[in-house]
Each structure stands twice: as structure tokens, then as C-alpha cells.
């Protein structure tokens, strides 16, 4: 077990997979950094430090710095993948799916189906998502709710360095298009990571991070830690929470959620996406439909309000689900009737 940061888990996994498989190719804006400047390639790597050194190690053919042209980046990833490569493309911010959604949604995600199952498109699209940096309405968003709704895509949301390693390796080796969402507020998080060069975490298997009998809390990303804090606090009062880290939203580990709710009878979904047609609603609907008889209280969603993401510190804090709001949500379902 090595100790490493979330961002280093991204970088080292890409580097290991590139070393192992010559078909793995990286592309994106400033993934090399310094192209066409006096400082030269790698003067500065990408802004998340998740591609540092790859250019030196693997060369210009396999680490491709691109103009600011996201549709071309994703389209190129598709073309590479349809031609036998395994591209790992970086969208600097998840919010930028707005300028290239067609290539994700209507192209990459649908080729296999439209072509009658006769193609494969093993592309990984990494993107930094989430609030917490006061980066305001266009640089702070969660997009898993949008992409989870799109058949043909797999959507991964690691919450720890170890999960980054295991899930990103799975993503790169997977034959379907995978959206890999990295929470920008977690890049600096440290954790233990297994050394096994083939350590992989299968998609569709959630992780139980706290165990309890009274309420099921489902989350992922930055908010997972908040949920764990709430669970720990309540544990001291003798209230037991199952905390489920989804890991992937598509495929979804329905079983883990339903099994838990069958015991606890209570569900709180904590998610960073907006409330309407979001993942929280998706899971509340799932549980209300498939575990109706077990439910002792209404399924509860703790999400931001239906507003864009505000800039000021006070506003962003008020926008995001906080430990307090999560605790209130949990107590609400515990106190039902």
C-alpha cells in the first residue's frame, strides 16, 4: 500500500496503463503544457497536474496537446477508439460538456447500438467536476445526472485515491465509452492505494463505508465525506447509518441500495447535482418503486437548490449540501411520524 493523493492516483494510473498498453493515448488542452512556447513542452503540465511527465515518457504521438476545441477533442477520442486505440481524453472542467455534448451523447455513446453491436469505442473522457472553489456558475457543476441519463455511456465518480486507481484502470481497460468524473476538491486528498499493478474495481459495485441499521445514506464525491461525518456523529448517539459510496452511477449498484434500505427502511440521497431530474431523484424513485414495502419514511434528497451555482463564499456554502443539512435530512427521516 502506498500513500498518495487523488490527483497522483489519476496520473500514476494513466502512466502505468500507457506503459502496459501502447494503444493508450492521452489528449486534451494543456495536457502537455508549454507547446509552442519558449519554455517548451512540459514547461507546465495541465492545471490539475494529472498528466505531468507523460509527454516526456511517451512522446508527442501518444500525448497530444490540443487547441481549445472540445468537440474536436471528444470527436478525435472517438475516432481513435474506433481505430483501435484507447484514448484518455481530458475535458478541463465538466461544465465544458456544453460545447461538446453531441460528440459524447449522440456519437460515442451510440455508435455500438446504431451500428448493430459491431463496433467498440473504448474511450475514457476524464473531467474535473464539482463545487467548492468559488468558481461560480460555469466552472463548478456536477454533470453525472446528465450523463447517467444517456444510454451507452458508463459514468464513474471515485471518492478516494484508491478508488481512482481501481476505477480508472477498469475504465481504461473497458471496451465501452467511460465518463470519469474527478471531484476537483478531492485532488489533494491523500489515501492508501494498493500496489498491485492490476488492481481494478469493477463497475456497478458500490462501497459500504459505514454500516448501520437505521438509515441508508447514498452519496459520492466530495459529499461522501460529509455523509461519513454525519454517520460518525450519529453513531455516537447510537444511531446506525449505512453509508454507500456509489462509485459508478451507470451501471448502478441497485442491489446494494435496495438491500440496505430493506434493512433500514429509510433513505437519504446526498448529491451535488441540481434537484430536478437529478441523481437524487433517480435513486429516490428507484427505492420508492422497488423497496416500497420496506420504507418507513419518505425517501429524502439532500441536494443544492434549483439555482445556478453562485460565486461568493457565503453563497456557495449555502448552495452546497453541508454536514448540517445532511444531518437535518437524516434526522428528518429518522423522526418521520
Amino acid at each position: 500500500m502506498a500513500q498518495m493523493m487523488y490527483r497522483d492516483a489519476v496520473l500514476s494510473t494513466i502512466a502505468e496503463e500507457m506503459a502496459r498498453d501502447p494503444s493508450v493515448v492521452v489528449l486534451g488542452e494543456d495536457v502537455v503544457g508549454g507547446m509552442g512556447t519558449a519554455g517548451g513542452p512540459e514547461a507546465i503540465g495541465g492545471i490539475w497536474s494529472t498528466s505531468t511527465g507523460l509527454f516526456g515518457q511517451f512522446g508527442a504521438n501518444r500525448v497530444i496537446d490540443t487547441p481549445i476545441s472540445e468537440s474536436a477533442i471528444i470527436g478525435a477520442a472517438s475516432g481513435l477508439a474506433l481505430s483501435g486505440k484507447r484514448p484518455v481524453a481530458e475535458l478541463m472542467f465538466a461544465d465544458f460538456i456544453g460545447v461538446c455534448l453531441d460528440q459524447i451523447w449522440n456519437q460515442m455513446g451510440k455508435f455500438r447500438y446504431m451500428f448493430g453491436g459491431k463496433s467498440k469505442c473504448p474511450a475514457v473522457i476524464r473531467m474535473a467536476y464539482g463545487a467548492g472553489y468559488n468558481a461560480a456558475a460555469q466552472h463548478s457543476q456536477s454533470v453525472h445526472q446528465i450523463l447517467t441519463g444517456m444510454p451507452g455511456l458508463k459514468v464513474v465518480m471515485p471518492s478516494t485515491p484508491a478508488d481512482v486507481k481501481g476505477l480508472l484502470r477498469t475504465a481504461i481497460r473497458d471496451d465501452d465509452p467511460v465518463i470519469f468524473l474527478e471531484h476537483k476538491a478531492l485532488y489533494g486528498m491523500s489515501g492508501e492505494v494498493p500496489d498491485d499493478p492490476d488492481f481494478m474495481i469493477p463497475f456497478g459495485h458500490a462501497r459500504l463505508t459505514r454500516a448501520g441499521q437505521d438509515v441508508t445514506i447514498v452519496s459520492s464525491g466530495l459529499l461522501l465525506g460529509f455523509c461519513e461525518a454525519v454517520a460518525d456523529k450519529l453513531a455516537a448517539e447510537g444511531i446506525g447509518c449505512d453509508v454507500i459510496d456509489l462509485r459508478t452511477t451507470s451501471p448502478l449498484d441497485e442491489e446494494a441500495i435496495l438491500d440496505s434500505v430493506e434493512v433500514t427502511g429509510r433513505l437519504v440521497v446526498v448529491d451535488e447535482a441540481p434537484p430536478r431530474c437529478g441523481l437524487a431523484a433517480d435513486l429516490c424513485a428507484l427505492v420508492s418503486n422497488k423497496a416500497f414495502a420496506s420504507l418507513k419514511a419518505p425517501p429524502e434528497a439532500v441536494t443544492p437548490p434549483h439555482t445556478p451555482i453562485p460565486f461568493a463564499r457565503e453563497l456557495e456554502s449555502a448552495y452546497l449540501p453541508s454536514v448540517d443539512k445532511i444531518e437535518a435530512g437524516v434526522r428528518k427521516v429518522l423522526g418521520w411520524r
Partner: protein
Amino acid sequence: MQLSRDALLRAYRRMKVIREFEERLHVEIMTGEIAGFTHLYCGQEAVAVGVCEHLDAADKIISTHRGHGHCLAKGCDVTAMMKEIWGSREGLGKGKGGSMHIADIEVGMLGANGIVGAGAPIAVGAALSAKIDGPGPDGLRVSIAFSGDGACNQGTTFEAMNFAVVTQAPCIFVFENNHYSEHTGVDYAVGTAGDIASRAEAFGMKAWRADGTDFFAVHDTMREVLAHVRAGNGPAAVEFDTERFFGHFEGDPQRYRGPGELDRIRAERDCLKKFRASVTAAGLLGDADLDAVDSESLDAIEAAVTAARAAARPTAEDVLTDVYISY
């Protein structure tokens, strides 16, 4: 460069098969048997064939909503395509894609595409793959993005051109200027008074222009273009002036055309007639040779339609498969 008798026959056969494929669909669509939107390539055959005759399966192409001609030229199976258009589960896409989404990765055909402008970035990626693989005995493998005069105004097409220049991808942007995007004229929609090639050139690549209704002009031009791109000089663009003989989609009343326009282009700008005139005048092939191909082609289409009509229909369970490889 003089083509062999076999090569000439082969090219003519490809064009003729496309022509008859489309003429037949034009008739069959009226019967209501074929579902969905169908855009016919009739009139533009010399472009698809003049380009693809230079390629083999390791070279890639990506097409548009008007994709039948590109598919056939690149080697997709006639009957499997017909079955797809009929929505059979024996179709190339098991009836899931239909006319606008025919693909065959094995022959290097990365798909017709219903989103105007979506193909060009994907073609750049295929070209980057070829660049990574490096040159073989004949130079680099290439990737070709077919786009229309309407598609050339989509941001994705522009991005792809700059991206290909920056990454020196062996990608060829083939613009088929048939003068219309749906019901709009190219002189209106392309701000450079309809000049597509110069605009492509301004992105930093070499561009060519040729008469897209003349197979030999297309084929000769592409020989130059391909030599340039296979040698590792980065991307290139070509604008072919061509004609579509039918409406934008089937059912289009085409009132945007000038009086007698359809008759004139059928008479003067028919690539098949031109081909025949040119090869018979030069004594390279005789009318009898070409007539034989004509009747062979008609037979092939007849057989394909018969097979498509008889082919197995998909079932409700088929809806659920082929979304993922594993899930």
C-alpha cells in the same frame, strides 16, 4: 495516369450500383415500406467512388446523413445495407441504425451520421491513429471526412480542420458542394460566396478543387491529395462541385431549383453518362462492356431488395442488446 480495364470496370460498377441502389429506393420509399428519413446520394457517385477507389480497408472514411454512396464505395455489402434500410435484424446494423447510421468498421467505414458536422472531428481521430501507427510501404494510412456544403458551416468542422493542422493528422476533408443544404443555397450559407476550398486553405492546409461529376477529375485529384497526405504533410482539403438528383430527403418538392435545373443536371452533369462518353470515346471500354455492368448492377439491386423484403424482422428483445459490451 491510365487506369486498367479492370479498374475502369470496377469504378463504373461501383458508381452504377450506387445509382441503381438510390433510384430503386426512390421508388420503394413511395410504397411506404421503408421507414424513417432517407437522403439519396444519386448524382454524386463520382465523388464517393473517385475517392474510395484509392483506399483499402485500413484507410478510414466517415460519412454524413447522405451516406449510402460512401458506404457502397468503401465496400459495405449491398444486401446487408438494403436489409438495414428495410429495418431487418439481418441488416448491417441489425435494423437499429437505418439509413442514416450505416457503418462497417471492418471495411474502414466509420459510419453515416445524422448530425451535420459530427463526422469531421471523428475522422481526425482516426487520422491520429494512423499517424501513431506510422507509415507503411505506401506511406501513412489516411482518414477521410466527407462533408456537405451545409456541414462546412458547423463549428465542429472548423474545429476539426484547425485541430488536424495543429496535430498534422493525415486527414482529408472532402467537401461535396452540391449547392444546397436542405433548401438553402450554398452562396447564401457559406459567407465566402460559396467558396469552401479557400476557406479550408485558410486554416493552414493545402486545398484542391475539381469537378465532382467527372470521375476522372475526382480520381486524378485524389491521387495528388493522397500522395501529399500519405507522405506525412498533414491534412488536406478538396472541394468537389457536384449535383444531387433528388430532393434533400424523399418527399421534398424542390421548389428552390431553377426552371429546368433537374433536367439540365441529369443531361449535362450525370457522372455515369460522362464516364461512359469518355471511356468509349477513348476506346478504353465499349458500350457492351458498360451495358453488361448496368444489367449486372440492376440484378444485384433486385436481389438485394428481394433479400431485404424476405429478411428476418427484429423482435422486441433486440431493443435491449448492443448498448454496451459489458454492463
